[in-house]
C-alpha cells in the first residue's frame, strides 16, 4: 500500500470586521484572476417562514430583485450584467443568499447594489403578482412537469420531521403563494433582513483597505437593526422506523430515499464531520461501499447517492439535519431488498471496519472537491459568508480539507453503527408513468 497522498492547504488571507450598524464583513483577497465574487447571506430560510406562508422565503428572495431604495425594477440585473457579471440568489433551509461575480473593476458597483437592497426592496402589488407567477412556473419546471420532481428534498422531510418549520414544502403550495401580500413581505423584510442578521463577503481580486473603505461608504448608513432571535427548530430523534410511499405520475422507475439524523453541525462539529465523510465512504464513486455492492455487484439499483442535508450542503446547514441516501431502481426493483442490503453494508462497516487505504482515498477525493469549489471567487465568497454566519468562523474555508482528513476510522465505524433501521425515515417513489396521465408521451417508441 502506497503512502497516503498529502492533503494540500490553501492559504487565502481572510479579513473580518463588523460595521457599527452590525453588518459582519469577510474579505478574502486573491489576485489569481481579475474577477470578484460578492455575496450577502441573510440568516433566514425555509425553516423560518410562517405557517400558511409555505414558499414565502423563496418568494421573498425573488422580490429582492425587483427594485430597491434607489433602483427601478430590472435595474439590478442590468447593472450587474452590464458590468460583465452574472448574479443569482437562492433560498436554503437556514439561509438565503444573494450574489454576483464580475470583473474586478465592478467591485464598487456590486457593493452599491447589495447595499441598496439591504436598505429595502420596492415591494409593490404588481411586482408581487408577477413574481408569484414566475415562481409557479419555476415549481412547474422543477417539480410538477418532470419525473422525480422534488425527490427527495421536498418529499423526505415531512416523513422524518413533525414540526412545521422542518417538515413543510419549501417551494410552497400555489394557494399559499397566491395569498401572499405586500404587507407580509414588508414584515418579513423588517424582521429578518436586518443588517445585523447578514454577512457580506467579497473574494477575489481586491485590495483589503480600499474594499473596506468602499464597504463603509456604501453600507455604513444602512439602518442598524439587530438580528431576530433564531427560534429553536430542534426535534427529537426517531425511535421507530418511518416509511411512506407516493405515486409519481411521470416517473417510469421506482426510487427510494432514506435519512438518519446526524449530530448538530455547530454544537458537535467533530461528531458531525464523521457523517460527512461516511456519506462519501458509502457513495463516492465506483470504489465506494454502496456503489460497489448495490450497483455493480447486486444490480439492485441503477444509481445510489449519499450526502448530508436535504439540499446536499454539509457545511451550509444547521440542526436538525440528516444523512440522506437515495437510490433509483431498475424496472420491478425491490425497495425492501435495497434497504436490507444497505443495513447489511452498514453492519459490515460497523463490525469489520474499513479496508486499508479506504478512508485516506475517500478523504483525498473530498479534498479535491472542496479545493475545486474554492477555485471560483464566488464560491469562496459564499462559503465564507455561510461559515461566518453559522459557525462564526469564515477562516474554516482554509481548514475544511484538513478537518476532513482528521476524521478517524474509529469515528466512521461509530457513525455507521448509529445508522440503524429504527432511526430511519424513508420515502419510496412508485412509478406511475404509462398507467395514467401522460402515458402516451413516454410510452411511444417508433
Amino acid at each position, binding site marked *: 500500500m502506497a503512502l497516503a497522498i498529502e492533503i*494540500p492547504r*490553501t492559504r487565502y488571507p481572510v479579513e473580518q470586521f463588523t460595521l457599527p450598524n452590525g453588518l459582519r464583513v469577510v474579505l478574502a483577497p*486573491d489576485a*489569481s*484572476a*481579475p474577477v470578484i465574487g460578492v455575496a450577502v447571506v441573510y440568516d433566514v430560510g425555509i425553516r423560518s417562514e410562517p405557517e400558511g406562508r409555505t414558499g414565502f422565503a423563496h418568494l421573498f428572495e425573488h422580490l429582492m430583485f425587483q427594485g430597491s*431604495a*434607489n433602483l427601478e425594477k430590472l435595474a439590478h*440585473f442590468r*447593472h450587474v*450584467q*452590464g*458590468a*460583465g*457579471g*452574472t*448574479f443569482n440568489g437562492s433560498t436554503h433551509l437556514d439561509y438565503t443568499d444573494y450574489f454576483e461575480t*464580475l*470583473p*474586478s473593476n*465592478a467591485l*464598487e458597483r456590486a457593493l*452599491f447594489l447589495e447595499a*441598496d437592497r439591504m436598505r429595502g426592496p420596492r415591494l409593490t402589488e404588481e411586482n408581487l*403578482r*408577477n413574481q408569484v*407567477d*414566475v415562481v409557479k*412556473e*419555476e415549481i*412547474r*419546471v422543477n417539480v410538477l*412537469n*418532470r*419525473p*422525480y420532481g422534488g425527490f427527495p428534498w421536498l418529499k423526505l422531510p415531512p416523513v422524518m420531521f413533525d414540526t412545521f418549520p422542518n417538515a413543510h414544502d419549501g417551494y410552497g403550495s400555489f394557494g399559499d403563494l397566491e395569498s401572499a401580500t405586500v404587507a407580509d413581505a414588508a414584515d418579513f423584510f423588517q424582521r429578518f433582513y436586518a443588517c445585523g442578521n447578514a454577512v457580506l463577503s467579497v473574494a477575489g481580486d481586491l485590495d483589503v483597505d480600499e474594499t473596506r473603505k468602499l464597504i463603509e461608504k456604501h453600507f455604513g*448608513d444602512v439602518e442598524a437593526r439587530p438580528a431576530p432571535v433564531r427560534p429553536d427548530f430542534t426535534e427529537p430523534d426517531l425511535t421507530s422506523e418511518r416509511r411512506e410511499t407516493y405515486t409519481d405520475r411521470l416517473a417510469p*422507475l421506482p426510487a427510494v430515499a432514506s435519512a438518519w439524523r446526524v449530530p448538530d453541525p455547530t454544537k458537535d462539529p467533530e461528531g458531525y464531520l464523521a457523517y460527512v465523510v461516511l456519506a462519501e465512504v458509502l457513495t463516492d*464513486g*465506483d*470504489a465506494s461501499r454502496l456503489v460497489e455492492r448495490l*450497483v*455493480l455487484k447486486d*444490480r439492485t439499483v*441503477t444509481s445510489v447517492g449519499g450526502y448530508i442535508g436535504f439540499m446536499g450542503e454539509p457545511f451550509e446547514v444547521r440542526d436538525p439535519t440528516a444523512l440522506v441516501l437515495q437510490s433509483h431502481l*431498475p424496472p420491478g426493483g425491490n425497495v425492501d431488498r435495497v434497504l436490507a442490503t444497505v443495513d447489511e453494508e452498514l453492519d459490515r462497516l460497523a463490525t469489520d471496519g474499513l479496508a486499508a487505504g*479506504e478512508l485516506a482515498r475517500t478523504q*483525498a*477525493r473530498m*479534498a*479535491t472537491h472542496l*479545493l475545486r469549489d*474554492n477555485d471560483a*471567487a464566488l464560491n469562496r465568497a459564499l462559503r465564507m459568508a455561510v461559515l461566518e454566519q453559522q459557525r462564526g468562523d469564515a477562516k474554516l474555508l482554509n481548514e475544511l480539507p484538513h478537518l476532513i482528513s482528521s476524521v478517524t476510522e474509529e469515528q466512521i465505524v461509530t457513525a455507521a453503527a448509529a445508522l440503524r433501521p429504527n432511526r430511519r425515515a424513508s420515502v419510496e417513489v412508485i412509478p406511475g408513468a404509462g398507467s395514467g*396521465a*401522460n402515458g*402516451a*408521451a*413516454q410510452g*411511444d417508441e417508433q
Partner: protein
Amino acid sequence: MTHTLPDLGPNRPLTLPPQAEKTLANGLTVIAIRRAAVPLVEVRLRVPFAGTDLASSALLANTLFSGTPTMTTVQIAAELQAVGGALGAGVDPDRAMISGNSLASGLDRLMEILAQVLTGATYPESEVETERARLVDRIQIAQSQPSHLARVALLKRMYADHPYAVQTPTVAQAQAVGQDQLLNLHAARLHPFGAHLILVGDLDPEKVIEVAERRLGDWTGNGDPVQLPPTPALVPGPLLLADRPDSVQSSLRIALPAVPRKHPDHAALQLANLVFGGYFSSRWVENIREDKGYTYGPHSLIDHSIAGSALLVSAEVATEVTAPALVETLYELGRISTTPVETAELEQARQYALGTLQLGMSTQSGLAGLASTYAGYGLRLDFLAEHSARLAEASIADVAAAAEKYLGPAKGVVVVLGDAKVVEDSLAAISPVTVQPAVSE
C-alpha cells in the same frame, strides 16, 4: 439620502495564462495551461468520434473504466481516488470526452491510469451487462423528461437526414450492444491521432507535457478522420406541435440559423442574440418573465457543433399562456431583425460578453472546458483575444445586419411540446400547425 450608481473602473485586460503545447509522435496534441490558484489539475481528453454508432458509443463511455488486464472497475476508481482523482467519459455526435481532475501531486498517477485504460480497456462481459441495463434505465428516464422530448422533436425537425437528427439511442439499440462492439469501436476510433489532451492546473506546463508524453506516448492508433456533411439549412414550415397530454407546461423551442465562431458575423450575431434573449437583461426575458410572468428560465443561445451552428430559443411556459408566449417571442425576434438596437442596449450586451469571457477563464475547470472545446474546432485560447476585439468593435449597423440575416422569425423552425387538446387551437391562430404525438426516440 440619494445614492447614485458608481461608475465602473477601467476594464481589466484579457491576460492569457502561461501554456505549452506539443503534438506527440502518435498524433496526440497535448496542451498544458498553468493556473496555480488551487493545488489541483484538470484533465480533458477530446477524441474525434463523429459517425460512430450511437448506442455503442454511449455504452463505451459508460464502460471505458470498467477494467484493464490488471485492474477491475473498483480498483481503477480506488487508485484514482487515492490521488484525489476521478475520471469519466461522455460522447456527443462529434467527440468522445474523457474528463476528470485530481490533486496536482497526483498528475503522474492520473496519466498512468488513463494510459492503461486507453491502451488496455477490456470491457468485461459482466460490467458491460451491468452498464447496459443502467443505460437502458437512463434512456427510459430521459424519455419521461419534457426537455428530452422537446429536443428529440426539434433535432428531427432541424436536421432531417443529417446524423445530428438523432442523438440518443433507443432502448432496443442499447440492448443490442455487447463486448465485441465495444472492443471494436475502441480499436477503430479511440485513437491519439487527431485527439487533444488538455491539462490545466498548479503545474509547470513544460513538465506537464513531459509527463503526458512519458505516460501516453505508447498509446497508438490511426485512421482516416471522419467528417460529417455540413448541416442542412433550416427549412421553415408549419409549427410542429408534439402532443404530451396533460402537460402542465409547454416547451417552446425555436431554431434559427447561426454561424461558426470564426465567421466574421459571429461577434455581431452573439451581441444581437444577447439583446434579443441571450441573457437575463434582454428584451425577451424582461418581456415574458419580468413583465408577463409566463416563464421562469427562458434562454437563447448559439449552439456550435462541428458540422454547423444554430441559434436555439427555449422556454417552458404555463400551458394556458402558450400562444401568447409564442406571440411575444415572435414579436421580439421580428423587432430585433427589423429595427436597430439602442446604443445603451448594445453597450450593456457588449460588456456582458466581454466580462463573462473573463469569468470563464477564472477557474481551472473553466479554462479546461474552453481550451478543450476550442481545440475541437482548431482554435486555441488566443481566440479569446481575437473574439474580444471583434466584440469590442461591432457597431449598431453590424448588429442590425446580423439580426436581419439570422434572427428574423420567418427563418425559424418552431416546435412546441405540450398538451395539444388545450393549445392547438390558439397556436393555429398564429401559425399553421402540424400535430404529432411526442416521440421519445
